[in-house]
């Protein structure tokens, strides 16, 4: 589904990713762990096409197409979803309006019929219920006045509504208490644990991996994958620390 080969990327002329290679197949969940400044968030932003993140080398194929050739909204329509570490507040734009606009823009680009207001509300309500987010919250402006946990839950509701092929979840576990962590973990499994989907979980800690079992764990350090393994690698990292394992 996703093939990253020898990816180099920089911000303001400063190289962050230095030859990163990674392959995700449909049906797989991968976790990327690593110390601060390793380039974890940069990987998510580079793959989603954030302005300012310049690719200087390598290639990324997504669903058989050149991902780097596409605009950010085209990458989204192709099925790529980025769960933000810090979801953005947008005053004056309601969640429902935002999501309906987004979903229909994606559907338009894919040549699918747009959803009517009623059809969309049905989808939105089902996803909000599944993640324990009050429907009233979806009527409020995007992330405005939401607690850290509510913002992350909202990211998962958005993921459920948009129903992507590949989700890159950037520290979705940060700022969550134990109950919220369980809900979010359950959400990821329900929405994304499917034979035709894949997940790239970016995280510092093992704790989210108790709820979302990864098939593969990678250690990102210095802009490259320095080790790959199974779920046991996450436990080893938790025990030994990054310095030890990445060395």
């Amino acid at each position, binding site marked *: 589904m996703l093939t990253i080969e020898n990816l180099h990327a920089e911000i303001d002329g400063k190289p962050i990713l230095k030859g990163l290679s990674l392959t995700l197949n449909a049906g797989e969940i991968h976790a990327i762990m690593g110390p601060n400044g390793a380039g974890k968030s940069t990987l998510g932003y580079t793959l989603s096409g954030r302005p300012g993140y310049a690719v200087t080398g390598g290639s990324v194929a997504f669903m058989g197409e050149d991902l780097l050739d596409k605009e*950010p909204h085209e990458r989204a329509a192709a099925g790529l979803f980025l769960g*933000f570490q810090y979801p953005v507040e*947008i005053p004056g734009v309601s969640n429902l309006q935002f999501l309906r*606009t987004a979903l229909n*823009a994606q559907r338009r680009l894919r040549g699918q019929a747009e959803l009517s207001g009623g059809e969309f509300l049905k989808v939105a309500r089902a996803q909000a219920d599944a993640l324990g987010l009050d429907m009233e919250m979806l009527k409020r402006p995007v992330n405005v006045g939401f607690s850290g946990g509510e913002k992350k839950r909202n990211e998962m509701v958005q993921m459920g509504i948009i129903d992507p092929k590949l989700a890159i979840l950037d520290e979705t576990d940060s700022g969550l208490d134990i109950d919220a962590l369980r809900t979010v973990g359950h959400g990821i499994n329900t929405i994304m644990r499917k034979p035709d989907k894949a997940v790239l979980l970016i995280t510092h800690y093992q704790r989210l991996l108790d709820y979302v079992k990864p098939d593969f764990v990678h250690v990102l350090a210095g802009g490259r994958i320095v080790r790959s393994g199974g779920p046991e690698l996450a436990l080893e990292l938790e025990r030994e620390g990054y310095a030890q394992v990445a060395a």
Partner: protein
Amino acid sequence: MIHALDLDTLERPKDEAHRWFDFDALKAAARMAPAAAPDPAAWFLPVDGPRLVFVDGVFDPAASDPRTVFVGENKRVDSAVPVGIPTEGEGWALFLGPDHAGDPVQVVHLSTGRRNHVPARIGLVDDAVASVIETYAGPGGWTHRMTEIGLGRSARLMHSIRIVQDGGFVSLNHHAAVGQGASLVTVVLGAGDAGCRIEAQVTLAGPGAYAELSGALLARDTTGKEAALVLHHAEPGGTSRQVWRSVAADRATASVAARVEVARDAQKTDAEQSLKGLLLARTATINAKPELEIFADDVKCAHGATVGELDRNALFYLAQRGIPPVEAKALVTRAFVADAIGRIGDAAVRDAFMADADAWLGDGV
């Protein structure tokens, strides 16, 4: 009459209140050749009530249904007016007696070229309630309106004004006196591509009066749009609100100068002012000039003025969810504009005005 003014000798006012006045645009508008008038029916909202159409300042009886609204010669309106324009002439007037609640009055002003002027008066006697919706449309020309408003004790007026004229210039001049416990809410949408100047002087003339002057100015290309507003608290216990949102793209200029005056006797005044500007291009200009002049000592006056650009983080967030750049910009800008247009109480009017703002935004910002 405005028609008799000699454009060549007409001088640009030099006072501070006309600092951002695009006088040349006004003169150029007045020299535009008349064109065919569009169909006024398209500009009426589907609400029942009196309907008035003025084409190039001339009442169109065939397209109108004035009912209780007076149409005819308006004699002297006792106010100072800009660039020396007398305020007499054919116009309209709405007078409502005590406890009378009128159906919404819709006035459509179509301008095709040259210059036109219509004086208007709105007088609401004690406890009367009215809603007036005015639309300025048409291809061009200089449209000038002088409106005098008087509200008696506890009367209430919702005055919604949309300027969607395609070209030329629209200058509005409002003089209002708000009586004891009365409420005047004026919300203006300046969309379209005509230049505009909205001038208003509102006096809270009775104790406990409420006055609101809000609006959104959307300017692009090289258009200049401005509002020059004075809210004068003359009596105690008055409340006033000003919420202005300016959007400027390309090389356009949007300016709001809003003054709150609190007289010595106007204790317990509660005034709030929020002027915000959104620059859609670095070549555009936003001016915001909040002014407070306070002579009473027991008052609450809040004011804020900010100018900024679209939030790039928000735009990327929207893009990542699949919203193309043009749509994303329009969505965020729309939210900004909605702060002001949302002050309109009637949902049907509010939605129609937002649709006009959407049309402007959808044309590409």
